[in-house]
């Protein structure tokens, strides 16, 4: 027996088969290049109002966080953090800088204890006006946040304008400030 590809009875068309398959592939690829699939995932909540919530105070002597505060005409940063989250300590100086720049920062502390939270704020500084205790992580989920830290820019009407995933690095400060200014207009 000779292999089919070498034997004349398969016919000459078989010899053109690889080329035909390749032409088909090239045509498909060319088509797909002209119609690229859109795979970007936009943050779903950007442009949406903040979901309704009313979190109890996380620390005695400081108000909790009610979502109605976020629609009071001023731009707020809402920072989701936790004392047990290592990168949250890393972004603390940046939050301090933002607070000094006059941006009101509201905190949502996720699954935390008063004691641990106090230690965290003593160690890293305290930029927060209000801290709501999100003990079951439900508000975090409602905000479309899947991890800590995350930071939202919320405009004066309570509309989310920007969602920042992960800690704010020093080089991102200007970008965040620009987002805040944008939200003020």
């Amino acid at each position, binding site marked *: 027996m000779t292999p089919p590809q*070498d034997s004349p009875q398969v016919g000459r068309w078989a010899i053109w088969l690889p080329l035909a398959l390749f032409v088909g592939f*090239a045509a498909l690829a*060319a088509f797909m290049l002209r119609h690229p699939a859109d795979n970007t995932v936009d943050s779903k909540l950007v442009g949406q109002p903040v979901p309704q919530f009313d979190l109890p105070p996380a620390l005695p002597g400081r108000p909790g966080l009610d979502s109605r505060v976020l629609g009071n005409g001023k731009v707020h940063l809402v920072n989701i953090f936790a004392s047990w989250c290592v990168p949250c300590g890393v972004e603390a100086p940046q939050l301090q800088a933002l607070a000094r720049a006059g941006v009101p920062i509201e905190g949502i502390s996720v699954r935390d204890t008063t004691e641990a939270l106090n230690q965290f704020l003593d160690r890293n500084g305290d930029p927060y006006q209000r801290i709501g205790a999100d003990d079951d992580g439900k508000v975090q989920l409602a905000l479309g946040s899947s991890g800590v830290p995350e930071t939202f820019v919320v405009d004066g009407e309570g509309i989310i304008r920007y969602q920042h995933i992960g800690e704010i690095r020093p080089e991102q400060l200007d970008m965040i400030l620009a987002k805040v200014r944008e939200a003020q207009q």
Partner: protein
Amino acid sequence: MMAELGLAALWLAAALAGLQLVAGALALTTRGASLGAIVRPVAFVQGLLALLAFLCLIWVFAQTDLSVKLVALNSHSLKPLIFKIAGAWGNHEGSMLLWVTVMGLAGGFVALVERRLPEPTMLATLAGQAFVSLGFYAFLLMASNPFERLNPVPVEGNGLNPLLQDLGLAFHPPTLYLGYVGLSIAFSFAIGALVTRQVGPEFARAMRPWVLGAWIFLTLGITAGSYWAYYELGWGGWWFWDPVENASLMPWLAATALLHSAGVLAARDALRAWTVMLGVVAFSMSMIGTFLVRSGILTSVHAFAVDPQRGSFILALLAINIGGALTLFALRAATVTEGQRFAVVSREGALVVNNVMLTAILGIVLFGTLYPLFAEAMGAKVSVGPPYFNPMGALFAVPMLVVMAVGPVLRWRRDTLERNGKALALPAMVAVVGIGALVLIGGVPLLPLLGLSLGVALIPASVLPLRDRDLRRTPLPIWGMVLAHLGVGVALIGMGSESAFSVEKLVAVHKGETTHVGPWSVTLADIEPVAGPNWTALEGVLQVSRGKADPVILRPQSRNFWAPPQQTAESALLTRWNGQLYAVLGGEAPGAIAGGPGDGRWQLRLWWKPFVPLIWLGGVLIALGGVLALLGRVAADLRRIILRDKIAYRRERQGR
């Protein structure tokens, strides 16, 4: 300064490739024959210049010269030096430069040493190599210049994708590239042979070491890539049928087929047209795979920088190279005279089955990889995964593996199964006993059952070719074949065992709490924050023990990188002779599941995977088999060259 030097070297190398193409092509005509003498030196210098350009790129990365755009986009001054260097090829432009460098060096090496083939065939081969290189040079210089400068110079770079900051991965792409590019030499030999119609045993022998070398690197690259995905992604799987994985598997399948058919052509002068076609197809698969990955038309966990303009450029390159080669094949194959004939039951017959089955699996993988594209062109979104690839692949892999057990003991040209019946009885019995035992255990799905029993049967079958042989006089390539086939059996046992007997457990535990997975008990002793040069992490301290043995500490991490921000799970593995314990630390357990705030439970994902390391051990054995065969071939070539020189020397003396 280094960047400009690199760019200049790249331009010069491209110009020399142009010269190599023109001179090589003209030298085939009677009027241009005198140009033939410059082709080999030009090929050699072209390789050196490409190497110089690549070294310049490594230099700017090692220095973190942020005025070079590529460095600013892909590196960071805080990275450890080894990853700065690996960053040079961990991106689109750098990896393309690596590609042309390896291609140039390989072409230069062929030009330097290969003297077996008729000179016109060699000139056509080198011209073909230059043609392919020229396309890649054009692509680099016009659409992806790695040495582009930035103004103003940024203060800090963007960093390298943290998933890529891993030693294994730093060397995984170069290994695959050596494989792809080795196949480009086989491609050029095929072109040369088609142009001059010199398709014979000599062509197969000249091409074989390159195919073998490429195949060794592909095997190692795929094995390493699979292990990397296994421990780095933290999903516990070792093969995902991801487009990028398929892109490396397809050239491997084609190269495996080519290796076997080139063996037939070299030994028996049969399968001429088929071997030439595989030579074209193997490199085409490398290029198609690279295109699919780089153009971004397929979605994958490996997201490379995507740019539609680049995609069009590579597609044009593919159309010219592959389309041209296949057209040449179609025009010339009919005039390539038929080779020797052979019986169905013979070594050649078994190798034809191997080739047809490998090609069928290649077709299945290619179709499965492209099908989502078809569907998307029709307006539907689908993803094709293991439910398609596994059974469809097995449909052809199982008969191929059976033939693989039998084929190596068959004689060339004509043989009977009766003659080999006695020898093959042992593997057959092992397979039957294996199937019986697994059915008795029960609950083993069909594919792992077939994999396990074929795997254990292949182990005695693979050493059969050594019976009745004087082991000290057995040629190295035979040892190589035995070892590689043994490796296939070993890997099959690993795969079968992993999918049949793995135990998985997802739990939320307090500090100090103990849980069990397979034969292991696992205690979460502590959670500690740790910091690396460019990441912070939570590290779980797990005390694991089996039976009464002393506990061993495992430290899985959940890492946060900050440049760019990304979270990865660093799994922790414990390898024992009979399997691997695999631990992944998730985050703190959500209160909703735990039933209250702050109850401090942590998510752990644990697997006990019996015999799973055999998968990669098998892969390494297969590659080692390739190394033995390559050593044997190269040694034989060297002996032949020395002998030829000796004869020439004696003749010269006698002539005096």
